[in-house]
Each structure stands twice: as structure tokens, then as C-alpha cells.
């Protein structure tokens, strides 16, 4: 049984201008212990898909539709509130982009971590504190005694992100979902945090989903990759294949826009144009506006996700033919 099974997920947000179609017919799966990178630019629907899985989107404005939305055998679509709380943080944990904004500024780090333990385990608070201390050691937190007694504003971004990872892992979840975990950090700290996440995944055998816009981040931490664009899955592949033989024109364009690819060529290659308007997404391929190979058929019909083998699938008419 797969740990995460998402089939035909669509997420709409109601806004004053109409329905924002953030995620359109997305399917993805994660086996236990696997690692998956979800890559795409802002607004491609990568975060929203996983937030929808954990039902963390605002109920007032977000409409979730899916044929299947399963997390560790729990149907998240039909899950009552109390059951949701049991799954969150225990089966699947999240690490967010901005560690400075991710902690309640009024509580000490230690209190916020033990709170997580006490939410999911029936243990005494001293037992919870012992688990927190152990976890802080495992994330190689320097000066962990001081960190426990510190308020968020007293710590650096890197330390807070370590604490955040410790908080996410302290209940030994089956999958860690890291949503742009290094975007808000200094470059030097970014590498440490990625190394840490990768090591912890190896040690614990947990599943890992790494959501990012940075191909460099996923290259070193995950096995498989889903490329998203305009709320849709463009390509599913392994990390090796993505960098070696990208099939989808969007994946190719993404790779070409990484700085320092071709020596001597000074100007950074960009993808011309803008992402499609989620208020009225195109009927055809969302990338056709910016694609060099697009023709009338790309404008008229959405290419289906064509599967090549176990790991590879591409949604492009030009690649399929």
C-alpha cells in the first residue's frame, strides 16, 4: 500500500474575481521510505496539492475534489476533524519555508516542541522533554539547552529551521513534507539543512517530499521528481533522467535556465512569457504560450500524462508522438 495516494486532485479557491484553479487533475503517489521532489515555479500548485492532502487549506475558500486522497490508508477527504489532528504531525509532518514565522513568538522553543509530543503521545511532560532533547541532538542543534529555553526571536533562521525539523520529526512521522525548507535561509546554511534532511531520511527510512522551485535542492535529496506547471503535472521522472534526458519542453527549459550551465555563455537563459492565469487556465497545455514546439493541437487539447515506464511519464503531445 502506498503511503500517499493522490488521484485526480483539483483545488479551487473562490476569490472576488472568480474561481482560482490552483491545482488541476493532479495525481501522485509516494511509497514508504521513498523520496519525491515536486518542482515548479510559484503558483504551479505544488504546495497547494500537499496542503490539500493534509486538509490545511482554509475551508471557507478552498474546494477540494479528488478521486482518491489517501494518507497511510486514511481517506483524508472524508476524515473528521479529530481524526485529521491525529494524522497531522504523526503520520505526515510539515516543514515550512520561513522558520522565523513558523513558531508562535510567545512560547519558548522547548515548550512548542514538547507540545507536539504531548499532542500525540500520552507521556508526562518530563518524558516529552527528554524526547525533545534527543531530537534536538539528532538534528545537531548547537547549544540545545539554551535553545529549549529561548524564544523564537532569540535564534537565527538556521537554528530555527533545525528546531522546526526537530519538531516535525519528534513524533517519528512516516513522511516528512518539506515545503521550500531552505528558501529563507543563507546559502551556507541551506546546504547544511538539506544535508540534514537527507541524512535523517536515510537514518529513519521515512518518506520525504521536497517541494521546491530550485532544481539544485532536489538533485541531491530525492530519487523521483514531479514537475508541475499551471496547476498540472507536466512530467514524472527520476532525478537522474530529469538531468540526463529531460523529455518535457518545460523541464528542458527549467534546466537550461540554471545559471552556469554552459561555460563562457554569460547571459542567463530565461523562459519567455508568463505562467497562465489560474482564473481562466487554457483548455490546452498550460505551457503552450511559452513553448517553442507548440502548435494548434497544443492550444486545443490538454495532453494526457503518457506513461513510459514505472518512473517516467510525460504530458506533452510533441513528446508522445
Amino acid at each position, binding site marked *: 500500500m502506498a503511503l500517499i495516494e493522490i488521484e485526480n486532485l483539483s483545488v479551487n479557491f473562490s476569490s472576488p474575481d472568480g474561481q482560482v484553479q490552483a491545482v488541476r487533475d493532479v495525481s501522485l503517489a509516494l511509497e514508504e521510505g521513498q523520496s519525491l521532489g515536486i518542482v515548479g515555479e510559484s503558483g504551479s500548485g505544488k504546495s497547494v496539492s500537499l496542503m490539500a492532502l493534509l486538509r490545511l487549506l482554509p475551508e471557507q475558500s478552498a474546494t477540494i475534489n479528488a478521486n482518491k486522497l489517501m494518507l497511510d490508508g486514511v481517506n483524508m477527504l472524508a476524515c473528521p476533524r479529530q481524526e485529521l489532528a491525529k494524522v497531522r504531525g504523526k503520520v505526515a509532518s510539515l516543514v515550512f519555508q520561513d522558520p522565523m514565522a513558523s513558531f508562535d513568538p510567545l512560547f519558548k522553543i522547548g515548550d512548542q516542541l514538547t507540545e507536539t509530543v504531548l499532542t500525540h503521545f500520552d507521556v508526562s511532560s518530563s518524558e516529552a522533554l527528554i524526547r525533545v532533547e534527543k531530537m534536538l541532538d539528532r538534528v545537531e542543534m548547537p547549544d540545545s539547552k539554551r535553545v529549549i529555553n529561548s*524564544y523564537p526571536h532569540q535564534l537565527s533562521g538556521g537554528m530555527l529551521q533545525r528546531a522546526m525539523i526537530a*519538531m516535525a520529526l519528534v513524533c517519528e512521522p512516516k513522511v516528512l513534507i518539506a515545503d521550500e525548507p531552505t528558501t529563507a535561509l543563507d546559502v551556507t546554511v541551506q546546504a547544511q539543512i538539506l544535508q540534514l534532511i537527507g541524512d535523517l531520511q536515510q537514518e529513519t527510512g521515512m518518506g520525504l517530499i521536497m517541494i521546491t522551485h530550485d532544481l539544485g535542492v532536489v538533485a541531491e535529496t530525492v530519487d523521483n521528481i514531479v514537475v508541475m506547471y499551471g496547476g498540472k503535472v507536466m512530467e514524472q521522472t527520476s532525478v537522474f533522467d530529469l538531468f540526463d534526458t529531460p523529455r518535457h519542453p518545460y523541464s528542458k527549459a527549467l534546466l537550461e535556465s540554471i545559471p552556469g550551465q554552459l561555460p563562457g555563455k554569460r547571459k542567463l537563459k530565461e523562459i519567455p512569457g508568463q505562467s497562465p492565469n489560474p482564473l481562466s487556465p487554457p483548455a490546452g497545455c498550460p505551457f503552450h504560450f511559452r513553448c517553442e514546439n507548440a502548435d494548434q493541437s497544443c492550444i486545443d487539447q490538454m495532453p494526457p500524462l503518457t506513461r513510459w515506464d514505472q518512473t517516467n511519464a510525460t504530458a506533452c503531445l510533441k513528446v508522445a508522438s
Partner: protein
Amino acid sequence: MIGYVVRRLLSISVTFIVVSILVFIMMHAIPGGPFDATEMPVSEAVRAKIMAQYGLDQPLYVQYLKYMWGVLHFDFGVPFQSPGETVIELLSRAWVPSLVLGGAGVLIGAPLGIALGLYAALNRNSWIDYLASAVATLGLTVPVFVTSMLLILVFAVWLGWLPASGWGSPRNWILPIVAYAAIPLATYARYTRSAMLDTLNKPFVTVLRAKGLSERDVIFKHVLRNSAIPMVTVFLPMFIGTATGSIFVEAMFRVPGLGAYFVSSIESRDYPLEMALVFIITLMFCIAYFLADIAYAMLNPRIRLGGR
């Protein structure tokens, strides 16, 4: 924390002195005096004697220092418009109705407003939320003398249930207190709702939910406490109203409170009474902001620990 309290106390004392000097100067800068020929047709010699008796012939800084020396000994002088009693006697007489009116108004309006704002924020876009917004908008935009008029018209004139004015019996108190309570009700409902919504939109609230906290813990343990920080700075100063009442409500319902003296003491250049009233208001503001600062620091570790 102690250093913080001392710093706040010092800054409030400075505020107090600056306000007293400014008011003293402005008061005397208003053209005319309490014993001008238009007020009191007496001979020049008599006027000079009266002026000397009240010390008004001396330079302004001497008058100020003398006055402040008296204030330090709780001597606020004698009101010119009612020379038979001291300022303190007049205030303690007129203050009671204002205290009852303002105190009851805030004690009724504030909890109702907070409850309404909380409920509205937690049930966003429900009919209660729309009701709360409507109440808050009406309460803040419709002047209190208009609501007072409406209350008098409906409950005193048409229905005849309650007296339109006066302060003799508790039955007289109901309409002015209701009219007054509408102000804190509307203000508190509005600020509570917006402070709550502001906190609910913070990323850490999503983190709390993501780590599996029950919605009850998210709201009562984390969101309320965070929302309280912006709320105390708005709310505590509103309690000044409990001490001073409302000039307009008192005028509309003919309540014999402090309100009337605010206007009359300026009109008649009643320096001692005017200074005393300003001192009361300033003191109230200073105490309210001091308490707000302390509450702010107690709630907020970033201030308490002198961080960024």
C-alpha cells in the same frame, strides 16, 4: 522587566509635566480673563485687587510654579465659577454620575464587544460576522448624540418606558448607559475581530494545525494570546471613559456629571477647574498607557526581554 517599568514611569512623568506646561500656557493664551470688564463691571482698583488675590497679576512662570506646588499638596485651588467650595469638592460631587455612567457603559459594552468580535472572527462570513461588522460600523460612525436622540425618541417619547433625562433614580441611568455602552461595544468588537483575523492568517497558526493540535488548543492557547497584544494597547486607554464619562451623553440626558464643566470652565476662564480637569484626563491616559505597556511586556517576550 524592572528596568522597563522604571523607564516607562519616567517617560510618563515627563509627559505629565510637558502636558501641564502646555495646557497652562494655552489656557492663558486664550484672549480675555476671568475678571474682564464684560464679565464683571467693577472699577480698575477692585479688579486689580481681585487679580492680586488670585495671583493672576504675577508672571506666568510664577503662577505655574505656585500652582504646581499646590498640586503636589493636593491643593487644586478654588473654582472661579463656584467659589464656595474647593476644586476637589466640586469634582468629587460631579464625578460620581460620570463614574457610574462611564463605568457601567464600559463594563457592559467591552465584554459584549469582545465576545462579538471573537465569535465573528471564528465564524468568518457567517451572519453573526456580518452582524458584528454592521454593529461595529454603525457604532463607530453614528455620533453618540444621534443614538441618544433615537433612544429618547423610542423609549421615552413613543413607548414611555423610561424617563428622557435626569439622574435621580436608577431608572434614569438606563438610557444614558445604553447610549454610552454602544461606543466600547463597537470599538471592541471591531478591534477584537481584526486582531483575531490578523493572527489567524499568520504562518505559525498553520504550523500549529499541521503538527496536530486540536482547533481548541490552536485558538485558546495560541491565537487568543497573540491577538491580545495589539488589543491591550487599544483597549486599556478606552477605560479612561469609565472615569470621565461622555460629554455628549451627559449633555443629551442632562446628567449632572463632569462633562458640563469641560466646556464651562473654558468659557469662563476658570483656570483652577480647567487645570484640574486636564490633570485628571492626563493622569488617566498616563495610567492607562502605563498599564497597557506593562501588559504588553508581560504578554510579549520580545519586549520583556529587550530583544528586537
